[in-house]
């Protein structure tokens, strides 16, 4: 008996050790990023690694605004993120409602087609879509990053459809007997009852757009149109003759910080979203 208990204690200890060690490994880079953002440039790449900045250079956070158009990049990123998210939620929830609740000819074929594109590699569509936006004269604007989101996202549609199907039909029937139209049922019954699913979609879309690198890289070329991702990339390759590593770290910190805050605020939505869609890497 004691042998078994001893064994269990050892196993427990080993699990703790592994998970704690792993957690440290996961966290150290964040800590180092923050610490480097408060160092002088020549103190960043040193051996042995210096963990606590001395002195702490808070001025880095002021100076970065003079070196890089931080405000501009942030506004641009927010513009793209907000409008894309709005679009994907609106267009996908409409389609999801139709697929979940309305019966009509061709519904299952259309849903199947849309679902089949979930795993479509982005690279196959990339060039023709780029050409389409060239023809429209939209290169260099935010439109190529925003407009596609207003035409539904397959994963989002799938996720919302699954959720809408769990809403009791009686609620909808009651409203129909009272003479409510489909758009009204959608807006006043289905959407308000789906707050949790919509939060999941909201959070995933915010994260995706905030972090996106490839699409902005394809479509935005002028510096004053850059998103944070592009700005951070450009700053690393910018040859100023001076060591700007500390500013790179500040900008990276500023970009990562909101993501972490949202993650902690909406952790449950995150976890649900990843598990339900299961599609991100």
């Amino acid at each position, binding site marked *: 008996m004691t042998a078994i208990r001893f064994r269990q204690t050892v196993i*427990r200890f080993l699990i*703790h050790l*592994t*998970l*704690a060690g*792993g957690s440290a*490994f*996961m*966290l150290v*880079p*964040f800590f*180092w*990023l923050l610490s480097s953002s408060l160092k002088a440039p020549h103190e960043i*790449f*040193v*051996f*042995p*690694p210096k963990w606590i900045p001395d002195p702490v250079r808070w001025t880095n956070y002021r100076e970065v605004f003079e070196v890089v158009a931080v405000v501009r990049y942030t506004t641009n990123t927010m513009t793209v993120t907000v409008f894309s998210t709005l679009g994907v939620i609106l*267009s996908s929830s*409409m*389609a999801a409602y*139709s697929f979940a609740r*309305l*019966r*009509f000819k*061709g519904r299952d074929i*259309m849903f199947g087609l*849309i679902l089949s*594109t979930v*795993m*479509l*590699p982005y690279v196959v*569509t*990339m*060039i*023709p879509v780029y*050409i*389409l936006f060239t023809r429209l004269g939209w290169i260099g604007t935010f439109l190529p990053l925003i407009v*596609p989101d*207003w*035409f*539904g996202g397959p994963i989002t549609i799938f996720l919302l459809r699954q959720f809408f199907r769990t809403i009791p039909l009686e609620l909808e029937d009651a409203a129909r007997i009272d003479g409510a139209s*489909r758009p009204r049922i*959608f807006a006043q019954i289905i959407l308000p009852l789906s707050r949790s699913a919509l939060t999941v979609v909201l959070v995933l879309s915010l994260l995706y757009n905030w*972090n996106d*690198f*490839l699409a902005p890289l*394809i479509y935005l070329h002028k510096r004053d149109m850059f998103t944070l*991702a592009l700005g951070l*990339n450009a700053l690393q*390759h910018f040859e100023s003759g001076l060591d700007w590593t500390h500013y790179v*770290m500040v900008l*990276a910190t500023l*970009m*990562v910080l909101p*993501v972490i805050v949202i*993650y902690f605020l909406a952790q449950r939505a995150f976890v649900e979203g*990843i*598990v339900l869609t299961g599609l991100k*890497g």
Partner: protein
Amino acid sequence: MQSSPAQSTPAAQTERGLRFFQRLSFEETLFGWLFIVPAVLGLLFFRLGPVFASFYLSFTKYEIITAPQWIGFANYTKLIKDALWLRSIEVTLWYVVLFVPLSLTFAYAVALLMSRNVRGITTYRTLWYLPSVVPVVASATIWRWGLNPEFGPINYPLKVLGLPAPRWLTDPDWIVPSIVFIGLWGLGNSVLIFLASIVSVPRTFYEAAEVDGANGLARFRHVTLPLTSSIIFYQLIVTVINSFQVFGVAYVLFVSNPSASSAGPNNAALFYVLYMFRNAFGYFRNGYASAMAWILFLVVMLLTIFLFYSQRRWVYYETEGGGS
């Protein structure tokens, strides 16, 4: 007795009922289609349409300023002789071969550990997931330092112990492993998905196994593994598809602009999509790049079909009537 207008014959009632249903279904059809109009347009213009368009473009020479010019299989035959394209395949396959098994086993093992109810498990789960939300540009920035051979923390213990330390991002042989390493840091998504499937295995299965005298390893082999195999299969497909499309990390670490002619020493970071991107957006060889895109698409599709075919041998579905 005269029948009043209010009373109608059964036939009339049925007719009215039918008309009611027809109107209902018309109304449903109307709104059904109205609500999916944006999504269908999106499907046509941003997904299905482009797939066919890029197939067509792959047989043309198209440099945006002039109209596409039909050249048959020329792009494809040129690709076979393109040393850089072959290099990009080599780099990408090497990555896929390393990353897919490593990330799946690692994520599954971690998920198994996390499925145990030890104290503080929620904190562990939160922390392990954190790197997954970091933008790819930022994680590349972080690991440029982390994997720095002289000053980085990964080589630090090796150097202190006087062991040979790899030159990670500067040694051509270590570049792909470095990218794999960075990918493993952001493993949280897979862990989370595995974890959800492991904890949803019904307790009764384990109890039954225990009654039958199965030890820990046997319970894992005969209960956990088969009951989560459909998720393993799913994750395998997603990971394979994504691994073929590595782009961001390599671009930030090794490329400074779209037409840069190299990707790391000896082109060791020339991933498939990176080379395709260079051709499309650096040199505006859209036909050529489309041919590359379609080859990748075909490979990924065939692989997925192959995996689907093979799953019958090793994936367990409850509907087959084995378990309960």
